[in-house]
């Protein structure tokens, strides 16, 4: 500050000039940045199956009549009682609702319930992770069947007049029990001699359904197909192919659950691209019951927020009176009541 005024002013001017030049350079750089930015608002690495999330409305032959909000958490599976009410396996309880959606009762269980089925006489068969229990129609426990010695993980039950078929996803087998709980046959195990390839189960979704035509329907998600077995365990035929297109089974492991219409046609449930479709018994794609649009939360949920065991987002379907289809969305804990659209040519 001691320098002559002249020199000081001179350096000041120089300083200002340089400052202005620097600012201009910074502004230019900023502008440049402004022009090239803007890629931050999209995800260049998005994994998108968006095209498959839309269903051709012409293929949807069902209409949603009602949506039931279940009062229970962790609803996993459904079954229909002979009276037409719905049984819900939800966490550590078995709930019952009327088709109108009002809760009738709930029966507490000792462990998380994984599957449930009802016999024609009203007897309830409940599957836990590694054992089965039998209940009277009024919810009183009648029997606890022996704990399975294997690494069992029961995920589906089907009941006939004289047998109970339990799908054991852990052991990759369908166990046929007599009504006393004795295992009388093992179905679907890998067997080269009988040309049975075995179940491929990346996740615990193995369902078994029975139809009076005498064949068991079992899904084989890892092979993207449905297999038909005789009660003796002979693989009669199988169909299904992996594709996200509507006529096939999507993702790594679908279908996850099955239901049978009164005439033997099959209702299939998928996860990932949550959708429910109807196939003829011989695998011809017939129509869509509910497309992915109906389950937006389910589609987003994925494997996140597990029920404690890593399973979460799936659909289950059961067929009620008049071939009404009830779909359980495990993410929203809602039941969608679906009825066939009234068209004369159907």
């Amino acid at each position, binding site marked *: 500050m001691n320098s002559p005024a002249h020199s000081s002013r001179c350096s000041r001017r120089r300083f200002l000039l340089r400052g202005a030049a620097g600012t201009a350079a910074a502004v230019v750089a900023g502008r440049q940045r402004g022009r090239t930015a803007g890629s931050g608002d999209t995800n260049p690495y998005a994994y998108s199956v968006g095209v498959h999330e839309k269903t051709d409305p012409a293929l949807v032959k069902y209409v*949603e*009549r*009602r949506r039931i*909000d279940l009062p229970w958490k962790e609803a996993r599976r459904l079954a229909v009682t002979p009276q037409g009410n719905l049984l819900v396996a939800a966490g550590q309880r078995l709930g019952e609702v009327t088709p109108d959606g009002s809760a009738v009762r709930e029966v507490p269980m000792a462990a998380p319930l994984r599957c449930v089925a009802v016999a024609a006489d009203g007897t309830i068969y409940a599957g836990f992770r590694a054992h089965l229990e039998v209940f009277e129609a009024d919810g009183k426990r009648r029997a606890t069947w022996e704990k399975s010695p294997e690494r069992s993980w029961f995920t589906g039950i089907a009941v006939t007049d004289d047998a109970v078929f339990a799908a054991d996803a852990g052991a990759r087998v369908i166990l046929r029990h007599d009504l006393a709980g004795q295992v009388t046959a093992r179905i679907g195990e890998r067997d080269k001699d009988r040309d049975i390839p075995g179940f491929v189960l990346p996740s615990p979704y193995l369902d078994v359904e029975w139809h009076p035509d005498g064949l068991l329907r079992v899904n084989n998600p890892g092979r993207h197909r449905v297999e038909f077995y005789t009660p003796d365990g002979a693989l009669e035929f199988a169909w299904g192919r992996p594709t996200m297109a509507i006529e096939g089974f999507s993702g790594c492991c679908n279908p996850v659950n099955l239901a049978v219409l009164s005439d033997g046609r099959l209702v299939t449930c998928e996860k990932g691209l949550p959708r429910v479709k109807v196939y003829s018994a011989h695998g011809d794609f017939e129509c869509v019951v509910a497309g992915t649009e109906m389950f937006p939360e389910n589609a987003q949920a994925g494997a996140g927020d597990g029920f404690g065991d890593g399973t979460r987002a799936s659909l289950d379907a059961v067929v009620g009176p008049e071939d009404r289809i009830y779909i359980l969305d495990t993410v929203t804990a809602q039941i969608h009541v679906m009825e066939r659209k009234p068209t*004369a040519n159907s």
Partner: protein
Amino acid sequence: MNDSSQPPPRTPAAEGASLADTLRRLARVAAVFCCLTGGILLVQHYRAREADPFKSTEMAELKRQLAAAPKDEALKQRIRELDLHLRQRYFAHLRRSQAGGWLLLIGLAAGVASARRFRKLREQPHLPAFAEDQAERHLAAQARSRRAAGIMGVATAAGLVALAWGADTSLPLGTAVADGAAAVGEAQPATPRLPDQAAFLANWPRFLGPTGAAVSIHTNLPVRWDLESGENVLWKAPVPAPGFNSPIVWGDRVFLCGGNAERRLVLCYDAGTGALRWQKEVPAGPTVTQKQLKELEETGLSASSMATDGLRVYAVFATGDLAAFDLDGRPVWSKALGVPDDPYGHASSLVTHEGRLLLQWDQGYEEDEVSKLSLLDGATGEPVWETPRAFGASWTTPLIINAAGAGQIVTLGASHVVAYNLADGAERWRVDCVGGELTPSPIFAGGLVLATSPSDRVCAIRPDATGELSEDDLVWTEDEEVPDIATPVANEELLFTLATYGVLVCVDVKTGEKLWDHDLEMECNASPAIAGDRLYVFGTDGQVFVGRAAREFGELAKFEMGEPIHASPAFAPGRVFVRGESTLFALGAGGKSDGSGGGVAE
């Protein structure tokens, strides 16, 4: 003026000069090197941005081609090569920019070091000049500094003011909430969403149901009921206001309206129990006189059925009073349109479409030019568009269809069937094929618009042309036992017409060929309805006929209800709602009240 712990160089001048030259050269070379490296890095940066390997359009195109030709091995090979190339380029880019960064750093260090050294060699010792009056200069400098600090402060404050008053917030809160008062939970919920198509189809949101063809998707409905024994009668509720309009249903609510010269009412019943949930009076507009009201009472004040879009219900009366309520009966808006000039009283029913209300306001005579068709915003009642109609009074309800890739509104007027664009109200096509006192409404089935010329004929029109159509463009016409009051009903395959004198005719929708007719031997004003494969018909003396909606005639039930019926039924899951002269009946299996019907999808 540089950092030097050494005194200025004592070396001979020449030696110093040559060292200085070297240093200067070095610094310049380093500067050029840095500029080059920096420039290359910059160019690379932009090139990497533009040619992001993961967004390669070439790759996307190849993959698209592969999807079209999944067996093309050559294509697969090209994809693999391109993929390898792109990824190699990407990782090479990473390596290059890393190396470039180091080169830049080294260059910078070398340049700065030599430049500093050079400056030091060149440094001239500071020779202080003699200065006087330190205090004076000090004071001046301080004053300048104060000014600068003040300017800085003012500039900062100005910037902050601009920031504070230039910012707005979209958080839904008043200042009170922002200041920390509670009541955050009471923040206004977002606008309720309009129900989707599925909910619309599952309800009975307007006269003749969601499609206007009086077809219900519900099938679990009773075939017969008995008011005497109460069999299959869920409940009965008195209707305190007379009217010919038909009930509508949304969720667990049934709506209808009625009135006389004294008052006009909108009524809401609980679908489960029949309890009157609410009733609201719609007062007459300011221009309506008592004399007009008396005259209107003769012909009926409430022939127009209500409509709902799932959020609001709408009602219109022959007084020209139009009102909107939310589902809980809170008034949303109302309009007084003035008493229409109509010999029988206004009778066109209301129709909604995605939150909008369609109003066909035909009146007077052709030359009066007072008729119009308007689409109103359901939330406000403000017109979206209005189209004048050069027709006199008519009593049909308009029809909204989706055909030929566009939303169309089909109306009847004088001798014409006229269609308008749903989007803007512009006329789309018209055909001169009807006449008389137009009462049965147009319907849409099997891709055809079916328009009834009362007691004359039914015409089928394919709604994919534009402009004036001729008689030759009619797909078919049918002229046997054509009704003059009841609107025909049709599913995709079969059309049923019901003449006022009770003759039911079944016609093939595709060909117009009559399949059968049957005399029900009753007088009918109410339009029949189809639910599943059943046909419900109601007579003016309370007769009920339930038959098969099939290619052959089949009777399922025929019985009496004991109360005159002029209104078309409405359907809900497991329930039929029938409006008698003074009673609303809910009919359903069991006859026991099995709970309010809640839970219908919305």
